[in-house]
C-alpha cells in the first residue's frame, strides 16, 4: 500500500497542466484519485509524476446555456447527483452519479476522472453515451471536441492523447416528453456495475416512441450502445411487451465480459432484463 516515488505538480491552469504532461510522458493526471491512487498503492500503476488538476478553476462548475448542459471535468459525483440543474437537464446523469460507490467516493470522484479512466463497469460511460455527450479536450495544440461514441476506444482506453486533458462534458438538455432511467445490478464486492443500463425515451403526443437510446456498462470492454434495440422501438407503443421483444430480439453485446463472478452468457441474459427494466422506467417517466 506504498506507491513508488513520484513527483507532484499542482498547476493552476489547464494550459500549465498540459505543458507538464507534454514534457513528461510518464505523468498522470490526478483528479479525485479514487481509481488512480488505489492502483498506485498496489504498484499496478507507477507514474513518475502526478498532475493534480483538482484546483484548476476552469474545470469546475455546472452551467446551462443554449439548450445544453456543461459540466466541468472536476465536478464531483456528489455535485452532479445533487444539482438541480443537472437533475432537470440530464436526470439520467444525476441518477447514475448517485449510484457510484459510496458517499466518500461520491464526494471525491469526478466526472472527468471517471470518463477518462473509462472503466467499463463504472456508471457514467453508458450515461454519457445514451445522452450523446460531447467531451471537450485540451492539449498542446489547443482544444477539440469528441463525441462520446468516439471517446471510448477499448478497455480503459479513450481517444485522449497522453498530453490531453478532458476539460468539460456537454450534454444536450432533456427534451420535453422524454424520460430516462439508470438501472444497475451491482457486483456485491466492488459495487461496480455487473450490468448497468442507461435508457432514454422520447414519446410523441400520442404516446408512441419518437426516439430511444439504450446503453450498457459492465458487460463489455467499453460501454455498449444497443442501437438496434433503440431503433426497433421507434414508432412502437412502448408497452412492456414491445420493450421486451425489442430487447430480446435485438440486443447483442459484442464480446461480453465474463469473470469469476458472472459468466458472459449470464451477463447477456442480465442485460436483457436490466435493459428492459431501464426502458420501462424511462417510459414511465416520459
Amino acid at each position, binding site marked *: 500500500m506504498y506507491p513508488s516515488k513520484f513527483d507532484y505538480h499542482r498547476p493552476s491552469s489547464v494550459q500549465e497542466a498540459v505543458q507538464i504532461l507534454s514534457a513528461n510522458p510518464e505523468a498522470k493526471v490526478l483528479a479525485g484519485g479514487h481509481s488512480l491512487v488505489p492502483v498506485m498503492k498496489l504498484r499496478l500503476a507507477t507514474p513518475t509524476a502526478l498532475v493534480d488538476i483538482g484546483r484548476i478553476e476552469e474545470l469546475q462548475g455546472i452551467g446551462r446555456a443554449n439548450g445544453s448542459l456543461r459540466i466541468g471535468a472536476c465536478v464531483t459525483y456528489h455535485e452532479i447527483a445533487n444539482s438541480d440543474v443537472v437533475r432537470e437537464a440530464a436526470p439520467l446523469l444525476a441518477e447514475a452519479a448517485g449510484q457510484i460507490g459510496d458517499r466518500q467516493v461520491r464526494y471525491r470522484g469526478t466526472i472527468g476522472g471517471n470518463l477518462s479512466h473509462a472503466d467499463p463497469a463504472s456508471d457514467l460511460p453508458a450515461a454519457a453515451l445514451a445522452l450523446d455527450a460531447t467531451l471537450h479536450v485540451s492539449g498542446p495544440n489547443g482544444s477539440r471536441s469528441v463525441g462520446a461514441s468516439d471517446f471510448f476506444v477499448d478497455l480503459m482506453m479513450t481517444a485522449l492523447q497522453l498530453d490531453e486533458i478532458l476539460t468539460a462534458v456537454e450534454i444536450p438538455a432533456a427534451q420535453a416528453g422524454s424520460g430516462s432511467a439508470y438501472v444497475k445490478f451491482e457486483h456485491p*464486492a466492488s459495487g461496480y456495475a455487473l450490468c448497468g443500463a442507461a435508457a432514454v425515451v422520447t414519446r410523441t403526443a400520442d404516446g408512441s416512441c419518437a426516439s430511444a437510446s439504450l446503453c450498457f456498462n459492465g458487460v463489455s470492454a467499453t460501454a455498449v450502445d444497443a442501437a438496434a434495440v433503440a431503433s426497433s422501438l421507434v414508432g412502437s407503443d412502448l408497452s412492456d411487451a414491445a420493450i421486451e421483444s425489442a430487447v430480446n430480439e435485438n440486443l447483442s453485446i459484442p464480446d461480453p465480459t465474463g469473470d469469476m463472478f458472472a459468466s458472459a452468457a449470464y451477463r447477456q441474459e442480465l442485460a436483457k432484463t*436490466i435493459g428492459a427494466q431501464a426502458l420501462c422506467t424511462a417510459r414511465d417517466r416520459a
Partner: protein
Amino acid sequence: MAGANNTNGAQGVFGSSIRRREDPELITGQAKYTDDLQLSGMVYCTILRSPYAHARIRSIDASQAEALDGVLGVFTAKDIEESGIPGAIPVGWLLPDMKIPEHYMLVKDTTRYVGDGVAIVVAEDQYTAHDALELIWVDYDPLDGVADPHKATVEGAPLVHEEAPGNIAFDWEIGDQEKTDAAFANAAHIASLDIVNNRLIPNAMEPRAALADYNSITGELILYMTTQNPHIHRLLMSLASLGLPEHKIRVIAPEVGGGFGSKIHHYADEALSAWASMQVGRPVKWTATRTETYLTDAHGRDHVTHGELALDAEGRFIGLRVDTYAAMGAYLSTFAPAVPTYLYGTLMSGEYDLPAIYCHVYGVFTHTVPVDAYRGAGRPEATFVVERLVDEAARVSGIDPAEIRRRNFIAPDNFPYATQVALEYDSGNYAGTLDKALATIGYDDFRKEQAAARERGQHLGIGLSAYIEACGLAPSAVVGSLGAQAGQWESAVVRVHATGKVTVYSGCSGHGQGHETTFAQIVASALGVPYEDIDVIEGDSGVMPHGWGTYGSRSAATGGSAIASAAQKVVDKARTIAAHLLEASEEDLAFEDGQFFVKGSPDQTQSLPDVALQAYLAHNLPKGIEPALEATSFYDPANFVFPFGTHIAIVEICSRTGHVTLQRYLAVDDVGNVINPMIVDGQVHGGIAQGVGQSLYETAVYDESANLLSGTMLDYAVPKAHFLPSFETDRTVTPCPHNPLGVKGVGEAGTIASPAAVVNAVVDALSPFGVTHIDMPVTPEKVWNAMHS
C-alpha cells in the same frame, strides 16, 4: 449520551444492557492499535512473497536491494539458519499418523503457495522497504500446483510435500462405520448430498501487524502484535521460532481490530519481525497490506463433502454417514488439524437423537495459504452438512422440515446425552427454540403466503437451521488426549485495592467482544462493588498470569468463570476479615450489595471497601490471614458448553436475474445466562452477517495453477450493511449446569447457524424447479442457471 450507562452501582448489573465502555475510544479514533505505536529508532520490515503457488528457487540476488539507500538488510532463510534459532512455525494439534512437514520461517528452496515468504527487507521507512522488495531478483523454477482439496488427492496431482503421498496430511475417522452401514441397509429413505463448503478469507478490519523491540543487553524481547492469545504466541515464539527463554519474551496485544480466528495462529511474519529486531538492534515494525491479508491470513472452511442421512419409515433418523476432504493448505497451521476433526466430526449429531454416525475426514495439503480456525471453526461446516441433509431428508420423506426436526430432537429429559461422536451434551431444550422461532416468524402463515406467491410467479423460500455448537473448549485433560498441545483452562486475578476499587486481569484477550464491559459486570455483581469502580485488563503476557486467549466462544464460559471463581475467593477472604471486625462468626454473616452484616442485624455492616482497607492496613487481621485482598483463579471447565438455537431465513428470488433478497432473518438462541443482552445481540448480528456472507457472497477463488483470483476487495465480497435486513433476535435460557455463571458462548452462533438457514431457504424457494441443492455462495448466476436449466 442517553442514560444506558447509568448502572446504579452493582445491583442488577449482571444481565443488563450496559453500553460498551470500549466504544468511545474506538469510535473517536483514540484507541491505539499496533500500527499506531511508535518507538524511538524504529525501522520497518517488508516481506518478499512468492508470486508462484509452487516453485523451486534457483537463486536469490539481493545485492541491488541491499545497496538501496536506507536499507539496513535483506535476509533469507539461510541467514535465519546461520543465526542458530529454531526458526520453525509449529503445529499445535497432533493427530495420529499425521504428516508434519517442515514449516520454516522463510522458504528454504521451494515455495508452496502464492504469498509464501521468500526474503525480508529491513529499512528506515516503509517506502524504502517496499521499494527494496522490487530490487530482489529471485530465479524461480515454476512447478504445477493444486488448490482443490479433492483434486489434490487424485493420482498424479502435484505434491505439496514429498513426504505426504496423495497430499494426505491425515486420515481421520469418528463413530462406528459398521453400525452406520447397517443402519443404511435398513433405511426406508436416504437423503444424500454433495456439498462444497466454500473457502473464506477472514478480513479483520485491522490487518495483522507486529512491532518487535529486542534489547540485546538484557536479552528481552517486547513484541506488540495483533493477537487473540498473547501467551500462546509467547510460548510458540520461545519454543519453536526464536529460541528465546519464555520469561524473556513479553507479548502485548494493544487494541486489536477483529480477528475471527485469524489472529489466533502463529504465523512466520511476526516471528520474522522479532528476529529482524534481534539482527538490526532496533525496534522493527511490520504491518500487513490488505493484499498480504488476503494472501497470508489463514483462510477458513474449504471442504468437499459427501453426506448421507438414513431414515426409517416414520421419518426417524437412524444413521448419518459423512465423507469429507478438508483443505489444510500448504502447511499445518497452529490448530488446523483440530478444525475438520474434533471441531467438526464431533458435531455430526446436531440436535438429534442419532443412533449411528460415521464421519471420515481426509486432511489434504494444497498449494494455498494454510486453512485454520475461522469464526465457528468446523462447527459451521458440520451444521451445514447436518442441516442441509435434514432438509433433504424432509424432502425425500415428504415430512415438513419443522416437523422432521421436532420428531428427531433429543428430548429435554434425555440429558446428559452421549452422542455417537464423543460429546456429552449437558443440557438442552431444542423444541423450545424451534417453537418460539416458528411462532415468531409465523411459519404456517408463511407457507400459505408462499403458495399464493407461487401462483403469482413470485418465489419465496423459508429455511430452518436448528444448530448446536460445542464451545468453551473444554477440560484440558480431554483436549490433551485428543491431540491439543495446549491447555484450555483460563486464568483470572481479581485485585481489590485499598480504596475498594478493583482491577481484574484475565488471560483472555478480547478484540472486539466487549470484555472490559462484561467482565466488569460479572465482578460488580459478585463483589457488590459499583461497575464504574472496576477495570479489566487483558492482553499482556508481562502483566497477567498465563492464559489461553480468546477464540472458540470461550471467554465468557472459561474466562468469565475464572473471574467468578477468583471473585468468590475474594468474598470468602473478605468474609473472614469482616467476621473478625464484626466480632461474629463467619457462618452468621450475610453478604448483600457489597455489605457484610450479621444475619438479622443489617445496621452494623462492613462494606467490601471497608474490609479492603483493613486488609491492606493489616493492623487488625484475624490470625493466619495474609494482608491485601486479591485472588487468582485457574479455572478448568468440566465440559464444553453447548449453546443451541433455531435460526430462520426468508428469501425472495428474482426469477429474471437470480438475485436472492434476504427478507427476514430470525435468530432464537439459547446461550444460557446472559451477562449483557446488547452485547449478545451484537455478537449474534455480526455472526449472522458473516454467515450470510458465506452463503450469498464470499468465496476465495483459485485458478487451476493455484493463483488466488479473489485477491482484493474488488472481487471478494464481504457483506455490506445494505445487503442485510434488520435481524430479529430472541432467546430462551437454559443455563449451563457446570460453570458458576450458567453462561455458554455466543460469538460463533451466528456463523454456525446462518449458512444452512439461508441455503435451505433458497432451496425451498427453488423447489418448484426441482432444485435439491445449490452450493455457496449462492450467486445470482447459479440461481439463474438452476431456474433455467
